[in-house]
């Protein structure tokens, strides 16, 4: 077991180094050197330019620069935002809870609807329900979520007036951040109506962000369930005279959920990608919106740091899923 975990951990190191390389060199593709970029359109006088180049070590060979960069990264220094002068890491972690809240809401939404839908579709194979689930799942998978968000705003915010159009909570409320999850903080604050306001702000973004994972999870649950339902031990259980419900809920589900758990882990990348679009549509103050704004302001340290941090988070979750999967399933652990 320990060997398995160590092997997996070992595989992460080259990927991490690769990611720092990507983050380091991508920024160097920007025309001009970083000092010119920082100076922006105002320009900079040549003497000061040369001085700054030396100061930042930018006159040294590229691999020395990379070594300096990776040394700083390992000390948690991702540079400062060129606009606010706040360290990138601080800005990221100030905004990350908002993205987390959205992503967690989305994955819960996807699980609560997706797993039962997948199970029923598998049990009632080829029924109208099954075909409906499969059709909707394919549609959800093909959905341009930036449009889906606008449609939901059109229907629920504009036509019905049920939900607000943007933000995390009504401006009337000021909630002291405790956990960073506004729904929990609003509830803790005990202020009347604050929790309700936070929840109504959350619901549409959660649906939008949860749509693609929902489609994938429903599809995956259905096929995993179909596979398990065809196994001999299920036939045995049925032959023993166990009720259908018991067979499905106790015997089949437990095994069918193993691949589903893996798929859930792999949704993290999908969620971050979706969060960029969802946060942009709903003006949700998370890391996705922050990065899009960094692009229009040409704030390269933010872009560089943000990519690296999100990449590392995805990598860490993938690793966790991998190890968990190895624990649940001994065949994976021992298959070299």
């Amino acid at each position, binding site marked *: 077991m320990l060997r398995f975990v160590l092997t997996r951990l070992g595989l992460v190191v*080259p*990927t991490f180094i*690769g*990611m720092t390389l*990507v983050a380091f060199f*991508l*920024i160097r*593709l*920007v025309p001009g050197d970083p000092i010119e970029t920082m100076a922006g359109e105002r320009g900079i006088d040549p003497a000061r330019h040369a001085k700054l180049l030396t100061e930042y070590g930018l006159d040294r060979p590229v691999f020395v620069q990379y070594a300096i960069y990776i040394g700083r990264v390992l000390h948690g220094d991702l540079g400062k935002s060129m606009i606010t002068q706040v360290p990138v890491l601080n800005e990221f972690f100030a905004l990350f809870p908002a993205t987390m809240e959205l992503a967690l809401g989305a994955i819960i939404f996807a699980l609560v609807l997706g797993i039962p839908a997948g199970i029923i579709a598998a049990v009632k*194979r080829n029924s109208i329900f099954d075909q409906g689930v499969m059709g909707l799942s*394919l*549609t959800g*998978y*093909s*959905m*341009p979520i*930036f*449009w*889906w968000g*606008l*449609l939901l*705003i*059109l229907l629920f915010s*504009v036509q019905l007036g049920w939900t607000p159009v943007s933000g995390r909570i009504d401006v009337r409320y000021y909630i002291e951040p405790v956990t960073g999850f506004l729904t929990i903080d609003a509830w803790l604050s005990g202020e009347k109506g604050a929790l309700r306001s936070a929840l109504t702000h959350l619901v549409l973004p959660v649906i939008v962000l949860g749509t693609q994972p929902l489609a994938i999870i429903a599809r995956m649950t259905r096929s995993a369930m179909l596979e398990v339902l*065809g196994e001999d031990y299920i036939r045995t259980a049925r032959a023993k005279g166990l009720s259908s419900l018991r067979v499905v809920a106790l015997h089949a589900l437990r095994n069918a959920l193993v691949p589903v758990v893996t798929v859930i882990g792999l949704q993290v*990348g*999908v969620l*971050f*990608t979706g969060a*960029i*679009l969802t946060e*942009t*549509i709903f003006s949700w103050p998370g890391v996705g919106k922050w*990065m*899009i704004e960094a*692009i*229009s302001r040409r704030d390269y340290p933010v*872009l560089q740091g943000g*990519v690296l941090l*999100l*990449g590392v988070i*995805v*990598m860490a979750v*993938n690793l966790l899923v991998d190890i968990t999967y190895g624990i649940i399933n001994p065949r994976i652990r021992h298959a070299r």
Partner: protein
Amino acid sequence: MPADATATAVPAAMPKPLSPIGEFWGYFRANRGAVAGLVFVVAIMLVAIFAPILAPHPPDLTNDAVFLKPPAWQAGGSWAYPLGTDAIGRDILSRLIFGARLSLLIGVVVVTLAIIVGVTLGLIAGFFRGWLDTAIMRLMDIILTLPSLLLAIVIVAILGPGLMNAMLAVAVVVLPHYVRITRAAVITETAKDYVTAARAVGATRARLMFSEVLPNCAAPLIVQASLGFSTAILDAAALGFLGLGAQPPAPEWGTMLADAREFVLRAWWVVTFPGLMILGTVLAFNILGDGLRDALDPKLKR
């Protein structure tokens, strides 16, 4: 296996064995969804080809007499502008029709780029193995680890917004799938007897790679290419929506949505139709890809 699995087996009397293409078509035709997807894709292609004939107006023609005119069937609409007009009086239907050209162009360019580069890298990795293989596959792992759209966004942000750079960025992001498929197929195929035989009679490495092994890797690549069209169109539209893809006034569907965002409160049609086109086209390519996979993959054949 459910009981009906044996019932759908090959009919008893079959006059002569079908050609591979005939067999493929037989399977494919039986899948009604896939045929519908194919029909939709062909329709979009025809629309794209005959855009100047089909469109009632030039796509960029503004008309200051008809700002935000609703669709024809709504009060205030007219059949001169069947799907209404946008904020500067351009005909939405005409823009959608010309937009089909851009979306298909995006699909073709991205998939072609990804196939050329991906197959080459996959062949190299699968044939030479060793450190080259490790280096290529590690790089692909890194691309796969980073959230796809995020990587595309960063690439475009650095190269500068525009349709060409957006296509390039999406091609980079989808590249790992083609490399992996090719490499896996190459490794499976090179272990087979026909490759050993070809090698024994003295075939060069290039000949082995391109004329022996590659044709046998075609099936999974065809499937991936069809699914790749949908990813390309969806991601490029997302970039367009974020202002990083095709630039206005290009009638790209995602870019049209970005323009339409501020009118969501008072003109539902400028928001609804471009998204419907994206969804329909992406869905059609996905269904088509699924159908192709079922028809081409013998393991999945019932």
